[in-house]
């Protein structure tokens, strides 16, 4: 059961909704170690995405994701705008012309998105950023693919890995992004970007396999 063009649309709308619902929470996280805007930023960006994709719903998946990327770049700002924007732009380039995504295409898409974030932000694992949710998630996807798990399980294990990664950011000292200015004082706080990353991946898993209850 591949991921369809319609699944992607539902995922994006669900992400918009989840980020809207969690806007205050994400901003709260960003207050502790940043500048109190991550929830506001993500909500603004995905609200724009939600409006925008209503108009391009008949495009292929690649075109759709590129639209998402450029919309995020144009509306989010801050650190998360170029990072998520680049991730979706690269994901779109990796899925150009596709109407459905089987496991190999999914993996290619996530790889491309990850490379995009790394290239744009020049961060690595362990620096207390969204990468600390996304890298283990992509690792989990690759493992799931190797284990030939069906797509819903693959996405579920991605989300689960992202959540574990997100929780692991609590104990990290930030060395990238705004939280790095706090040095040691950043310890003990969960990274907002890692949290939004998990929310988006969880939304994907929930979209594709809504029947499977996830451990939140």
């Amino acid at each position, binding site marked *: 059961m591949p991921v369809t063009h319609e699944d992607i649309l539902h995922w994006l709308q669900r992400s918009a909704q989840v980020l809207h619902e969690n806007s205050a929470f994400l*901003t709260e996280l960003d*207050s*502790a*170690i*940043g*500048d*109190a*805007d991550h929830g*506001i*930023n993500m909500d*603004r960006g995905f609200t724009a995405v939600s409006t925008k994709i209503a108009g391009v719903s008949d495009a292929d998946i690649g075109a759709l994701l590129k639209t998402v990327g450029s919309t995020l*770049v*144009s*509306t*989010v*700002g*801050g*650190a*998360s*705008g*170029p*990072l998520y924007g680049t991730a979706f732009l690269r994901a779109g380039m990796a899925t150009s012309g596709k109407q459905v995504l089987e496991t190999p295409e999914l993996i290619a898409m996530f790889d491309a998105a990850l490379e995009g974030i790394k290239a*744009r*932000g020049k961060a690595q694992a362990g620096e207390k950023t969204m990468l600390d949710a996304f890298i283990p998630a992509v690792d989990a996807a690759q493992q799931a693919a190797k284990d030939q798990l069906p797509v819903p399980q693959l996405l579920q294990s991605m989300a689960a890995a992202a959540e574990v990664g997100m929780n692991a950011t609590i104990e990290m000292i930030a*060395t*990238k*992004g*705004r939280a*790095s*200015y*706090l*040095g040691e*004082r950043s310890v003990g706080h969960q990274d907002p970007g890692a949290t939004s990353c998990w929310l988006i991946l969880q939304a994907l898993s929930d979209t594709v396999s809504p029947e499977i209850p996830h451990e939140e």
Partner: protein
Amino acid sequence: MKKLINKPEDVVREALAGMAAVHADLINVDIEQQIIVRRDAPIKNKVGVISGGGSGHEPMHGGYVGYGMLDAACPGAVFTSPVPDQMLAATRAVNGGAGVLHIVKNYTGDVMNFEMAAELAAAEDIEVVSVVTNDDVAVQDSLYTAGRRGVGVTVLLEKIVGALAETGAPLAQVAELARQVNNQGRSMGMALTSCTVPAAGKPTFELGEDEMEIGIGIHGEPGRRRAKLATAAEITETLTNPIVDDLRLKAGEQVLAMVNGMGGTPLIELYIVFNELERILKGKSISITRSLVGNYITSLEMAGCSITLVRLNDEFVKYWDAPVHTPALRWGR
């Protein structure tokens, strides 16, 4: 949250409209694209100088658009870097054929967004050079971190570099002067109170009645450390010494000094801090030959201050003294 606003989501747009109304003689404000452009831009064969960053730092940057300083500014959402579209629009609007200088404060978001804008401008054959300011000594600098924040020196650099650009100097020279000013400038700030991001609706951090934050940036982020409230003399020492050390300022040298209010601190207190700063520097035989005291790079209604010192040379002085006419800085015309 106690603010003179309507809806939080309209703050930036309405403030821009107000600014456009007050300063119609100096600037054009494109509220749709969210850019503030000098009325006479683009100026043929003059390097365009632009900057931008989150809103909430007023008068920076929009207040510095005008003769002898910036050609355009791109205000983002409150404390959020503007998006590449704004920077690209501003770059186009001020490109008089001699290229455009992007003055970027060193924050991950600002750097990445300006980077994307520069790529887009390059694709349109507009020559862009970016100079990143990173003057905050409160932040540890290393290859493995995001580096120092760009703070107060940005304002002083925009003035000095804007004056050079006004003479018709080429982009490479304007960019080089910008790098030099950044290299010779350092800052450090502190907060007595937090600020409140309008859309967040509550203070970013809580401080006790006898506490302060030392080593803050300009986005309401907590500082490097929390400390017991101290006197103006002690606070000024705490901020000044790391700057002097980091700049390796020596006896006999001259500086441009800025005592900057964070938005909620009254001028009478800033003068007291300046008085302490002068005393401290005099004790080291460093003389303040140019100065600026007031709210120039703020964090909404935060109470507190920052100190910026720039080691002066004849060229810096010449361009500092040159006429400037912007909403927030004006002399010589």
